[in-house]
């Protein structure tokens, strides 16, 4: 099983590896969600969606369905 942002627990960090499909919105890339950058799960909204992330110092929130498309590698 490949890990994605959606698998992170609160406070856990990872490094973005790649996107699982091409439909990833350009806007997400522009906001700093790029391969090689680091990502931390800051907060999960009530009802488990959306996810509040800190990607390389940029704070943003995305829905789980998008998070599932971003593969990561865990940082211990």
């Amino acid at each position, binding site marked *: 099983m490949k890990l994605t942002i959606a698998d992170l627990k609160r406070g856990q960090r990872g490094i973005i590896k790649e996107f699982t499909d091409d439909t990833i*919105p350009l806007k997400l890339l522009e906001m*700093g969600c790029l391969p090689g950058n680091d990502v931390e799960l*800051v907060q999960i909204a009530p009802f488990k969606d959306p996810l509040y992330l800190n990607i390389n110092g940029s704070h943003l929130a995305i829905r789980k369905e998008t998070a599932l498309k971003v593969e990561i590698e865990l940082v211990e």
Partner: protein
Amino acid sequence: MAKQINVALIGNPNTGKTSVFNHLTGLNQQVGNYPGITVEKKEGICKLPRGLKAHIIDLPGTYSLNASSLDENLVIELLLNKNDKDYPDVAVVVSDVENLKRNLLLYTQIKDLGIPTILVINMADRMELKGISIDIDLLEERLKTKIALVSSRKNTGIEELKELIINYGRIPTEPCLNASSIDPEYFDRLRKAFPNQSLYKLWLVITQDVNFGNLNRKEINLTQDFLPKKKSELKRLQQKETIARYQFINGVLKETHTVDINAAKDLRAKLDRILTHKVWGYVIFFSIMLLIFQAIYDWSSYPMDFIDMAFAELSEWSKNVLPAGVFTNLISEGIIPGLGGIVIFIPQIAFLFLFISLLEESGYMSRVVFLMDKIMKRFGLSGKSVVPLVSGTACAIPAVMATRNIENWKERLITILVVPFTTCSARLPVYLIIIALVIPDERFLGIFNYQGLTLMLLYLLGFGMSVFSAWVLNKIMDIKGKSYFVIEMPDYKLPMFKNVAINVVEKTKSFVFGAGKIILAISIVLWVLASYGPGDDFNNAEAVVTQEYGNSLSEEEFNKHVSSVKLENSYIGIMGKAIEPAVAPLGYDWKIGIAIVSSFAAREVFVGTLATIYSVGSDDEKTIKNRMAAEVNPILGGPLFNFASGISLLLFYAFAMQCMSTLAIVKRETNSWKWPALQLFIMSGIAYVAALAAFQILK
């Protein structure tokens, strides 16, 4: 006179761009619309040292030059079109010191356009707190520009920025990275096909849906010897471009920028933990909403009573001072009460805009979006729909425009369709006066005022109806679209007084003047219709009254009957009588019927209309409220405005689609008459049925 320097202010949202704009221009600014579209255009004049001046345009906030909305299109079109009169001599890119990396993406794109570009690093006052240090000289060298370190909160760095603007000629115009390296072969072909055009501009025209000058995408693709790429390939290239830009930025910042991670960053985390908590988050959100509505009702009642009295006195005074005649009557019975009907709502509207701008400035609104997304999604809306729904409490027009950042078309369309159910400020006048007439001014448990609670219930009803109809629409509409959702979570900031104040003044002013014009015009028309009549009964009202009552009446009573006969036989009386059968089952008389019909132009006309009709009908000086309280129901007897008819009216105004401007905006945003027509008929139908049911049950 020296030439004005054209300056374009550009930046990501949440960088304090507007504060910088406010500092540069002071109150010397105006807000208009771009021709043909409804995007707000903010421009102002900035006085520079040595007698020079700059004309500054505050462009809509954008994360990049890859347009995904109308607002962003506009930024690109201005920057690409050298013939535009606003084409900048110099671009000022505003960035936030804490988000420099992301902000610089836009900077590198602007730089590639060959416009002299100054970089403003804003919020410099937070550097120490966040442990950030920057080697400005080295950064200037790497980015090939001049940098102004500004703190709009502490008002530092603005003079330095002005100096840089004056000397814009010294700023290099070469790009800071080579974007064509993402696909050298393709860009080479492009260069050969259009030797005279800037390569990056061509690239933007190809990838965006914009035109500039005489060049457009179709022509480029049809040019011989140039092999266009498929859409998916272009998208891949755009991703590659973004990555290349970030690589460059990462490299530059590594050399010039250090952050001491031990520096405090607790406040944000602590606040986030509470404000987005699964219980406290909602409790806090609803408490804030409750506080706002109580405040709007309680705090503004004092200035409102004062304004109501003042206009009643002004009307009386003008009648006494001016020579008697038609013109004086027009002023004292038509224009002054009509104007009073709009001025009276300034306190409330100002309070409402004050709270909304505080919520947005502080960064709290994004947390609400985050908190509500999952719930709203269930109803076919997006978390981002919360912003239009909340700002819809001010006015549906900006709210419909605020839906532009919702990425999914279906969610956006549903939001547009249901936003007019939220209680906009134009409904407030109607609610307030009806509530004051039919709901007792007493307290519940000694704290909550019944009138305030009723108002709160009406707001909840508006939201409830929006959400419910969204749910229905989501079930019946079959639109598929790619859905995604990205929102920035900005840091918390203490709202800046100056920004909030300017915002409140601007918004209130445009409400008063925008609505004021319609109200004034309608007041005059109504006064004319109420003061003249076609038949004999109108002209011989005295004779009619004498015939009916003989000479038994006192002079005062006689006059009262005469004016009421006149009003009933005036043009407006005849029209009102014609529609009375339709409104009588709802508990209204023909005068309210007329007020409702004229409200279809704009709701806030209601009170002004009644004020005009009643003031033509009575000679006593009284406030609008007292006059309404004295009206008698022609069929049932008793006060016309009682609990049953009052609730019926409140429900009618809560649901009916009575605003031509909103319909026009919806047409423009959805590009079809189908949706506004649907709103007009469905909403007004619901309103009629609800009002009918309420009156028949309660009477």
